[in-house]
């Protein structure tokens, strides 16, 4: 009997590209009758007029519904099941968030509408701001950044502006070798050189190296805490001290705040500035890649440099945007950020309350440790330091059979799960980075554990089964090399319509 308990296969629709379903004369739109004189575009626009829209599709409404419905069935989402992507915090996306963010006065609001009729939105931003500073133990906030990486950039620019105000923006940002790729990329965009910081045997920042590398050239350290191994940097207070002693600041990548909310506040132990990923910790949906939201919280010293505008309370108690911020780093985005995500995050915080948020964090850590305990022995644990919200194994025990983490991940698909994170963190060779989040029941965790154990066994008994996985999906093992070598990045009409597969 198949060891696979969680999934089976079922008939699934094929579907071509929308362009292949197009034919002239089909349509899915209708405009109300024009109540003003019709303008002849050729006359009004002259040479700037366009007459043809090329290969834009022509299809009817039902074809659109079916097209995207069918496509959707090829995806796996949090709604489908456990989504253990480490560092991604694939938690439940509450439906009430979606309802709240679609309310007419919120979704329909124009960013330039008068403040008088924007008090609702302003209050949401204000309340969320308060919640975020309270949760992190920080003093001030900007909600403008559109995602985590954007928040990083904003935060590092705050550091830069602050140091500049002290006379020297400095040259370098220290980044641990376990850091996420956005950290060094951000530092570079902010005009800094990146200097690597080694992790120690416990997977934490190596304090002696930090001491050695911290000098007056260093603007900041970007630390992730818990770091990408899921390990809490216990020496965080000391790290802050070391930096502060040299006039450098401590930036924290808050992507892993799901391990801390309600349990510990970075601001209480020396962090000067950090971003959060509302699309991780605060339950806003990942949407197949975005949108996210990356608010930045900071200490008082950085507050003058926050992007414009900031929200203020007017003497008459109404809320307003303040643009008169001469020391601001300027805007990092038009308008006020991904407002719709702010609505969702606040709805999430309100649904939880302080006790719910704490319980959430506890369950996230509980789940990760449960998996760790149950898979230990089956997979190699390169760092034995205690785990917080995620656990990172390696494929060390499986490589002898020629099997890598990516193969195990593919085989997990046959067992009805989305794979864990495979390419990251770089300090673990062949990493299996597993973050279950608090949203998983014991039942779902046990199924994952069974699946992972069964795969470990398959690696011994039948490596080919694993190496050729997945066996149950519409498509399997794509030729990614050809994709990159001869990029085909758009459909073209000349290409023969591929036979429906």
């Amino acid at each position, binding site marked *: 009997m198949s060891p696979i308990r969680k999934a089976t296969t079922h008939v699934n629709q094929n579907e071509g590209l929308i362009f292949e379903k197009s034919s002239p004369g089909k*349509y899915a739109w209708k405009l109300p009758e024009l109540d003003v004189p019709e303008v002849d575009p050729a006359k009004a626009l002259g040479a700037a007029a366009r007459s043809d829209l090329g290969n834009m599709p022509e*299809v009817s409404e039902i074809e659109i*519904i079916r097209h995207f419905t069918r496509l*959707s069935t090829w*995806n796996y989402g949090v709604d489908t099941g456990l989504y253990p992507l480490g560092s991604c915090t694939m938690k439940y996306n509450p439906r009430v968030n979606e309802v709240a963010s679609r309310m007419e006065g919120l979704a329909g609001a124009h960013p330039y509408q008068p403040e008088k009729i924007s008090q609702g939105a302003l209050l949401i931003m204000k309340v969320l701001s308060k919640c975020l500073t309270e949760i992190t133990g920080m003093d001030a906030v900007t909600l403008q950044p559109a995602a985590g990486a954007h928040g990083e950039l904003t935060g590092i620019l705050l550091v830069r502006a602050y140091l500049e105000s002290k006379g020297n923006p400095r040259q370098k940002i220290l980044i641990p070798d376990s850091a996420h790729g956005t950290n060094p990329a951000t530092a570079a965009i902010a005009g800094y050189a990146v200097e690597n910081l080694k992790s120690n045997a416990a997977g934490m920042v190596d304090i002696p190296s930090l001491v050695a590398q911290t000098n007056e050239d260093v603007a900041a350290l970007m630390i992730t805490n818990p770091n990408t191994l899921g390990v809490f940097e216990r020496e965080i207070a000391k790290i802050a001290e070391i930096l502060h002693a040299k006039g450098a600041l401590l930036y924290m990548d808050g992507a892993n705040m799901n391990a801390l909310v309600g349990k510990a506040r970075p601001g209480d132990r020396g962090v000067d500035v950090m971003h959060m990923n509302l699309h991780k910790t605060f339950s806003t949906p990942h949407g197949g890649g*975005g949108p996210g939201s990356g608010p930045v919280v900071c200490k008082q010293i950085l507050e003058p440099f926050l992007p414009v505008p900031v929200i203020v309370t007017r003497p008459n108690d109404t809320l307003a945007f303040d643009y008169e911020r001469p020391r601001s780093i300027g805007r990092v985005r038009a308008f006020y950020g991904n407002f719709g995500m702010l609505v969702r995050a606040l709805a999430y915080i309100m649904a939880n309350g302080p006790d719910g948020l704490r319980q959430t964090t506890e369950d996230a850590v509980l789940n990760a440790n449960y998996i760790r305990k149950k898979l230990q022995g089956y997979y190699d644990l390169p760092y034995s330091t205690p785990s917080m919200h995620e656990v990172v194994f390696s494929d060390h025990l499986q490589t002898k059979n020629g099997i890598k983490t990516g193969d195990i991940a593919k085989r997990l698909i046959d067992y009805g799960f989305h794979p864990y994170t495979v390419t990251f963190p770089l300090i673990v060779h062949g990493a299996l980075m597993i973050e279950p989040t608090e949203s998983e029941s014991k039942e779902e965790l046990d199924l994952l554990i069974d699946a992972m154990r069964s795969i470990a066994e398959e690696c011994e008994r039948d490596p080919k089964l694993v190496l050729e996985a997945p066996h149950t999906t519409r498509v399997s093992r794509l030729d990614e090399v050809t994709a990159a070598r001869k990029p085909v*990045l758009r459909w073209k009409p000349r290409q023969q319509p591929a036979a429906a597969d």
Partner: protein
Amino acid sequence: MRYLPKSDAERGLMLREIGVRTIDDLFAPIPADFRVKGDLNLPRAFAESEIVDYFRQRSAENGAGYASFLGAGAYHHYRPVVIDSLISRGEFFTAYTPYQPELAQGTLQAIFEFQTMICELTGMEVANASMYDGSTATPETVMMAARVTGRRGAVVARSVHPEYREVLATYARHQGVPITNVGFLENGRVDLKALEQAVNDTTACVLIQSPNFFGTIEDVAAAADIAHRKGALLVVAISEAVSLGIVKPPVEADIVGMEAQSFGVPPGFGGPYAGVIATKEKFVRQMPGRLVGETHDKNGKRAFCLTLTTREQHIRREKATSNICTNQALVALMATVFMTVYGREGLKELAKHNLSKAAYAAGEFGKRAKVLFSGAPRFNEFVVQTKEDPKAINDRLLEKKIVGGLPLKKFYPELGNAALWCCTEMTTRAQIDAVVKEVAQ
């Protein structure tokens, strides 16, 4: 907590299996004095019905039910209802970035279609999977031009959206990108002579917007010519995507940085929107952001995957083309559905309605006030100069549940009592007539 699928008994069982006594044992790595004692000072837990009520109240305080003449980078277009019913499918909105193509062909194929449609509409050869928005796409296009040309300077038209320029300035400052601003003429277009003077052999790119911030359509070919003659690239920003239905695409540009909000994305008090960058094939390896490519699987079946990832931060780290990771995928999906609904003919008609409404409105305004920049074609926005401060006019309109045009004093003090008005297919003649009456008072 109702989102948590665990009973206390199960928690206890799991703790025992792990081999610890209490949950706090698992938090031992956090020094005790660092741990929060008691509850944070946050709103107490709300029932779902209370959450709905709370946001309903906020919505009611936030201009629900007002007619609006605002544009300026955020547009009120009708959103076909199929958009939300499709993007609300859990398989789309609760999925992650499609790193595992076997479980993400839906997202991947949809992005591939998005990329294709953006190419069709902009006249470019490749388009990425999205950027945060039009404003942040701006510095990204400029930095891209710098990478392509090996130069740094940018010459920027003042008729580019002021907030896009502000964002560019924030980024440019620390990238060492010198920016030269170029003004506009009586007809609202960029001053091509000044532009020509400003461009030199350190110029990486010329940046214009078309239709520009005033709604005026720029002479893209002429700007391209100026840029190209000096070995610079032309970057064209587009903030009103619906214009592409009827305005000649900027085929002469090298890079297009565009805001897709008009394509079915609610104004949403400023976001989430979706930026997108499109360019020529030859520049694709300098492009920021994710790209989906067509390939085949091990059985030869057509399939799609993320590709050219060596441009990206998770591979290249500090040498990446951008630090962007999370983008605006679901918003791009909205845009994809919108473009599919209107399609080849509908987008044209939609654009024509916008054009006609704005033309009618400009005509009516013109009878009682001064409509600026009349010498060049415009799309669905126009600038009206009044005797009265436009804020006063707007205050009166607000009482009639109408939001008037955007006063421009803040961005262009030299234009005096000017405001930027926008009409879309949603604007009715009756609304226009009501507004014009108020202006004439």
